[in-house]
């Protein structure tokens, strides 16, 4: 999330003071992303240097200055809205590595590891959903932010489910309860040896 562009967007509605920008930013993101006032003033200074915002009260203390967007700032904002977001590395990557490690470690019940993460993710989803359930249904800002988190977390849970299904097709290891697994496996030959999935991941890199 870029504070620069968020502030430009707020200034596109009219000129504003720094404190006001901070309050409006928090209100519009459903107060899920707090912002400190220092960040606001540093960002405004940077935008001013770049010529994206201006103020009549140059030289005065930050809190007493009212900022407005320039034509250059408008163009920058328009460009930003149309630019695809950065491909920040999803937090799932660390989970993929953990599960790959677990698959190779002898004596580890990988499906139990998967379940630990699944439960933690679903608990986090419950917190977001309850926030949404209690909120005013017309609070669009909150709904947008919460939905984005929920869809992201759901994708990770679905990946865990897919990993679980892959592991079910493996022969039972000595650590798993054979009696509880025998129905889970199809009658045909086991699909793939334990090493193949991580090995393929590595080959792809």
């Amino acid at each position, binding site marked *: 999330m870029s504070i620069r562009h968020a502030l430009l967007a707020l200034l596109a509605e009219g000129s504003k003071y720094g404190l006001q920008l901070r309050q409006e930013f928090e209100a519009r993101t459903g107060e899920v*992303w707090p912002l400190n006032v220092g960040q606001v003033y540093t960002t405004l200074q940077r935008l001013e240097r770049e010529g994206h915002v201006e103020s009549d009260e140059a030289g005065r203390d930050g809190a007493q200055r009212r900022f407005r967007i320039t034509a250059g700032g408008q163009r920058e904002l328009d460009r930003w809205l149309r630019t695809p977001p950065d491909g920040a590395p999803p937090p799932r990557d660390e989970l993929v590595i953990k599960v790959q490690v677990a698959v190779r470690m002898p004596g580890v019940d990988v499906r139990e590891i998967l379940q630990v993460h699944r439960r933690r*993710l679903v608990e986090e989803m419950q917190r977001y959903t309850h926030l949404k*359930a209690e909120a005013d249904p017309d609070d669009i800002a909150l709904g947008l932010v919460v939905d984005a988190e929920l869809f992201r977390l759901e994708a990770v849970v679905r990946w865990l489910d897919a990993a679980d299904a892959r592991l079910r097709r493996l022969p039972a290891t000595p650590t798993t309860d054979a009696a509880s697994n025998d129905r889970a496996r199809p009658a045909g030959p086991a699909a793939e040896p334990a090493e193949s999935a991580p090995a393929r991941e590595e080959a792809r890199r």
Partner: protein
Amino acid sequence: MSAVLSMSQVSKVYGTGNAAVHALRQVDLTVGAGELVAIMGPSGSGKSTLLTIAGSLEEPTDGTVLVCGDDVSTMSADAQARMRRRSIGFVFQDLNLLAGLSAVENVALPLELDGMGARAARAAGLRVLEELGLAERAAHFPDDLSGGERQRVAIARAVVGDRRLLLADEPTGALDSTNGEAVMRMLRAACKRGIAGVMVTHDAQLASWADRVVFLRDGRVVDQTAPSVGPATLLAGDVAP
């Protein structure tokens, strides 16, 4: 919180010998009034079996099921049927709405079957449809409703009257996320009014509407979520400059 559903050490085996399928193994599950519990687990893990046994549509091979404190296994077939009609609401994936009855007639049907007069049953049905935002659709037949509306009529039918326990198997079926959310808001509201709810789903977003999520694997309860903590923990923001 009084337990509406209490299952203890419930097992279910289909078939015998080599063909025996252990659909449930020593399952313990208690659901209180006002609580919504979601059951998650892979296909074949026993979710629907658990629900049909909780609703006394099938008998367990072993273990006991109490509904509102009464042991289902000691009830006569008649008493079981009456309990199912009066106290338990079912929502299944193939909704079983009767095509020849209007929305409100479908909703009122369980009350009429239970001996309530047609006019009173209809009025009660209409009240629930109103609560669920379907008042203008009351006279429509199921074929003339959208998928989301049919789903809501099925839930109205499951909560009408003095139900204590609501059992739902994939209640949002193939609905999109907006309609799915509307259905979940309704289920949650029904439970907040004091009904105990058990909902089966493989969808984590739907499950996250529940107060508690129970995970099944190979017929066993392997895990469950902790009671929800407040949303305050979500406010630790990370905003990049």
